[in-house]
């Protein structure tokens, strides 16, 4: 009887181990930021994507942390402005370097939580230039109470890595990092079957569009892998109850704390130069978010000045409302923005070699 029980237990564990190995093998490898102009999987694989190899001689490293305007998921990856900037800076041998690499740590719907995690992760590196391109939407006041599990990417897996956790500000840890996050991350990092769940549902969703929101991950938790390989077989329709439209992006006075916290974290990165940019985002007067945007810009201007951080206000670079279709959808805007950056960025790389 006892032998049978042990055999059963062995079979139980063996079956699970087999499934776990199969799950690990089924998932694709994630390139690093050095290997790809942006994370091809969009919301997944971020801890792997931010892994960096030691820098070679004669190579300048520029890290760009930004939002959907630099990710530009609808545009071919070689034609987005970070990739163009990398090529232009290398061709120009900016700062006397043989090559300049621009690491694009940007994605759609970035939150101040993820910005903080990337900034803290970068404390282990020493880039020649760090560009933090931000907009009001990245610092929505909702982020003050948003749990780690409600961010779109899997960057929160970084939050409980010991080195990063120790470097995170106490206020951030108190707001966001709970015991459950530690345990969840430990499980996700070790058990491939759990990571495979997101992958499998994303694959299903991209094969039969509509499954993810309807059956697996509605609303704020919607964060699929972006899988070019999945063959589209059709749409199963979106849930009739989903109300399209307004995102929770308003920047209230309380959110100033988030901006200050982020700037402080940026300053702690051992980068040779630090640049903060307000991304092109001009709203017409009368837009419900106009006041919120204005408040954000004022705060950003004040807080960078207080800290002596170099700040460029590019918010009015494009015509009002162009930000929505501009960098998100149009290649021309990327060329235009790259040209504007090339007028100013090379000077920041001078004297580094």
């Amino acid at each position, binding site marked *: 009887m006892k032998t*049978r029980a042990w*055999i059963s237990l062995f079979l139980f564990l063996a079956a699970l181990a087999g499934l776990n190995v199969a799950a690990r093998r089924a998932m694709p490898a994630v390139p690093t930021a050095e290997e790809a102009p942006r994370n091809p999987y969009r919301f997944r694989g971020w801890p792997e994507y931010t892994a960096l190899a030691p820098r070679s001689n004669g190579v300048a490293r520029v890290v760009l942390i930004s939002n959907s305007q630099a990710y530009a998921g609808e545009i071919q990856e070689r034609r987005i402005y970070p990739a163009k900037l990398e090529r232009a800076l290398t061709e120009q041998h900016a700062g006397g370097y043989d090559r300049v690499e621009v690491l694009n740590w940007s994605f759609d719907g970035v939150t101040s939580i993820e910005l903080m995690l990337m900034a803290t992760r970068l404390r282990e590196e020493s880039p020649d230039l760090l560009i933090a391109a931000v907009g009001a939407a990245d610092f929505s006041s909702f982020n003050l109470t948003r749990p780690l599990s409600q961010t779109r990417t899997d960057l929160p897996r970084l939050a409980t890595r010991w080195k990063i956790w120790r470097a995170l500000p106490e206020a951030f840890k108190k707001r966001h990092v709970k015991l459950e996050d530690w345990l969840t991350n430990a*499980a996700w990092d070790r058990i491939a079957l759990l990571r*495979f769940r997101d992958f*499998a549902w994303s694959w299903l969703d991209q094969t039969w569009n509509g499954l993810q929101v*309807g059956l697996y991950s509605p609303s704020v938790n919607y964060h699929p892998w972006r899988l070019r390989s999945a063959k589209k077989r059709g749409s199963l*329709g979106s849930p009739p*109850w989903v109300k399209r439209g307004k995102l929770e992006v308003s920047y209230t006075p309380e959110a100033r704390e988030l901006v200050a916290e982020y700037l402080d974290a940026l300053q702690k990165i051992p980068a040779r130069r630090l640049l903060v940019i307000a991304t092109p985002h001009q709203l017409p007067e009368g837009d419900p978010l106009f006041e919120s945007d204005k408040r954000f810009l004022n705060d950003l201007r004040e807080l960078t000045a207080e800290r002596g951080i170099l700040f460029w206000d590019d918010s009015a670079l494009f015509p009002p409302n162009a930000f929505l279709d501009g960098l998100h959808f149009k290649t021309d805007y990327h060329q235009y923005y790259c040209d504007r950056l090339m007028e100013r960025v090379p000077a920041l790389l001078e004297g580094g070699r």
Partner: protein
Amino acid sequence: MWFNTYTYALFLAVVLPLYSILSLRGRQIMLLIASYVFYCWELPYYGGLLAISTLLDYAMGILIERAKTTGMRKLWLGVSLTGNLGMLGLFKYADFFAWNIVGIGRLLGFNAHWEPLGFILPAGISFYTFQTISYTFQVYRRQYPAERNIVNFALYVSFFPQLVAGPIERATNLLPQLKSLSAIRLENFRAGLCRILIGLFRKMVLADRAAIVVNGVFANPDACSPGVAWLALACFYVQLYFDFAGYADMAIGSARILGVNLMENFRRPLMAVNFTDWWNRWHMTLTGWFRDYLFNSLGGFKHGNGRAMLNAVIVLFLCGLWHGARWNFVVWGLWSATMLIAYYGIRAFLRKRGIRTRKSNRVTIGVIGSHALMFVLNLIGGIFFRSADLANIRDMLRALFGLNGANGFPPYLWGFVFIVIGWYVIEFAQEYLNLNARWARMPGWIRALGWAALLAIVALGAVNLQTPYLYFQF
């Protein structure tokens, strides 16, 4: 602390080894501390209320037992009831009743005003106050002697597996087990883990998935066709059952690991053939509580059919209110009462004509028809139970009967139709084809692979959305 979290797994990983190495007294004290840690995990002040309720009923139990006259016994029982129901009333119902009184005052032309107390409802208060009341009643009725040991009694009130959402235990079942906690045994450990796994599957794969449809449709019924709206009601039934039964599974499984057998809370509700039968299968420990301490106290069936029906209305009205301080719960309670009275009426009518409605184990068209009728009536009851307010009920009714002009049925929603059908098929097989016994007779290796498959389904099929347990709010 929720059962379906890694934190709970860690909690068990600390509690179980400690339990194994301690003596009986040590186990009791450790479990008491662990139960308070479990309860106070989110909001520590909750623990104070739990302690007050414990001390009150501990003292009242002893005083009732010592009282020499019936009058004194009644007095101490009254103090216990006033204390427990007063606490429940203050934290759960004070704002609700005050707002209604203010509303009536305004209708009558008074310039009434009420500043909300704004208490956060302490988790599980409705459950543990009912549990302590049941103890006091059992002592009052001399069904159980007053517990003299404060640790034993405090553990009975706060035993973590069933503290927050039941089962509402009786002293006669739980206290003797807590007084003789045995060592962890392999078969209990295995059975407990399997039960927890079933609970995780029910909660994380079925209930939370059904919640996607339910939350979506009830938030925006105007956009939903009749097909989607009816499916949402079916999904709400799925959510409500698997959420609560899943919780009960995890509670019973956790207690089983410790060698404690908790009372069952559900018994295949889809197999109910009438409303009396349904109440004997759904949230059985609450039904039993209301039957023993309210319905029977009001006279039960002793004073004729008319009085019994009135008693049923009172009980189900209060049962509705127990679920929450909102009118929709009251309407749901009254709907249930109406259905129960209709059933009594039909039964009496048939009996007068010599037709007997006897429950049999044979499957007939009539039985399956009764299942279907009960299912539809419960779906309708679900509208009242789930709706946020009366306007929401109106919008849902419009959607159900196609009065909002919406149409369409996304194909993937068929998945939910199959979940409902699968639920029925499994309960049917358990009820009439002895499915559980057949599974228990399967070779060990098949069962091992079955449990591994279930764990993999939970790992891969769990919804990426943590929905709070519905019954935590009650």
